[in-house]
């Protein structure tokens, strides 16, 4: 039976009943931000809030997918119903993408693991804008834990820390010296570090640099943020070595933040952040409509006054801001 033309609420019921094709279609609605997405979000939000959301991030080629595959394998063996969101970049030129992470996970995953590949679709922070909505859906349909693998990132793609309960940053030998480790950005937001490719020369050096960096967080008081020092786990993702230790550390982190109130706080912040992003997107749309002219009387005149230097851009913006709700 085709899902075309089936009301979204019915597809949602099918998805909560375990039909994976239905869940696949709902994710497409959310990714497209289609009219159906709002219905889906409404239905999902009330049922979500249970899953442990884990983010795996790190530079391209650091072994995120392979490591995620190893985790998924363990979770399957432990009888958990896990989901994976694997994000890869969209082409800035054509919008196309090659989503190549699934291939490293499918064969090791338990049969009821749900894996979805997502393209960033123009978003810059290491995830796609639809990720929070998709996480909510997976959560509402009973997947727990949910593992998000980001695109290969550099230093500033920190979206994941706002989206996951536990953020794992994957480092590898050869990533640079101890000054790199102390630069601001992604490394500050890790809840856990993995040194992957631990069988290669230099792995211990990376560990030492990360340790020293964390020592300084203590000196500067930065570790007050979470009240715990991130653990560093050595892994060799190809062979699976270290993966059980990583999973144990992820669970320890979750237990710790559940105990000290951080988990609840992070989730509240996450929801507020999503409301903020929605609002900003809505406002941006209105501003674009307004400035495109015609749709609101008087706007063109205000802009003409700015061009004629009889009104400052600041004053014009203030005048127009007062009228934003008219759109």
């Amino acid at each position: 039976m085709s899902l075309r033309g089936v009301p979204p609420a019915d597809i949602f019921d099918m998805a909560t009943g375990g039909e994976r094709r239905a869940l696949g279609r709902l994710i497409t609605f959310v990714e497209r931000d289609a009219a159906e997405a709002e219905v889906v979000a409404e239905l999902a939000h009330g049922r979500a809030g249970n899953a442990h959301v884990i983010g795996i991030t790190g530079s391209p080629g650091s072994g995120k997918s392979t490591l995620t595959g190893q985790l998924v394998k363990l979770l399957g063996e432990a009888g958990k119903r896990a989901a994976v969101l694997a994000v890869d970049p969209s082409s800035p030129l054509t919008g196309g993408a090659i989503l190549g992470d699934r291939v490293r996970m499918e064969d090791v995953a338990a049969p009821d693991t749900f894996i979805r590949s997502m393209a960033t679709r123009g978003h810059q922070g290491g995830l796609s804008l639809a990720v929070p909505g998709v996480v909510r859906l997976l959560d509402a349909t009973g997947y727990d834990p949910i593992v998000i693998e980001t695109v290969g990132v550099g230093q500033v793609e920190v979206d994941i820390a706002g989206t996951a309960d536990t953020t794992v940053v994957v480092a590898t030998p050869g990533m640079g010296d101890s000054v790199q480790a102390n630069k601001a950005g992604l490394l500050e937001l890790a809840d856990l570090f993995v040194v992957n490719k631990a069988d290669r020369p230099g792995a211990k050096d990376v560990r030492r640099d990360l340790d020293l960096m964390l020592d300084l967080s203590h000196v500067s008081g930065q570790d007050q943020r979470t009240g715990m020092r991130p653990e560093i786990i050595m892994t060799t993702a190809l062979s699976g070595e270290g993966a059980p230790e990583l999973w144990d550390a992820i669970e320890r982190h979750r237990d710790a933040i559940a105990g000290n109130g951080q988990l609840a706080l992070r989730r509240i912040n996450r929801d507020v952040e999503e409301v903020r992003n929605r609002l900003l997107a809505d406002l941006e749309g209105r501003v674009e409509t307004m400035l495109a002219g015609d749709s609101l009387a008087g706007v063109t005149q205000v802009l003409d006054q700015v061009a004629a230097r009889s009104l400052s851009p600041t004053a014009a913006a203030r005048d127009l801001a007062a009228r934003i709700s008219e759109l």
Partner: protein
Amino acid sequence: MDDQQQIRVVLAKLGFDGHDRGIKIVARILRDAGMEVIYLGLRQSYKNVINAVEQEDADAVGLSMHNASHMTLAPKMVEAMAEAGLDVPVIVGGIVPDEDIEPLLEKGVAAILGPGASAEEVAQTVRDAVAVVRGEPAE
């Protein structure tokens, strides 16, 4: 291409067939045509492809075949998709002798692309096959 019509394609090679130069080029062609390619690559099973189509909500499946197994594996893939209730076109690319083309189309393969197909032909074939299933008028 706007998100409303973003085409998602699963690309795979079934069974024992190690020639993946072609499928990698096709992946790149479809990427550059603005599509999202879920790349499964070598040694896949029907089940893997169906899992991917369901979970990825794919619009089309591209099978690359270079080991003369197309007359058995391609129709079986079409059959397996139908059994799973998936109305997703299966397109075969690779080495298919002329006399096999008609029988494959009769068995439900949506289109066949040979070594002479241009990048534009490859992309347009996928677009057309997806448009048919989506009920859009062909370009």
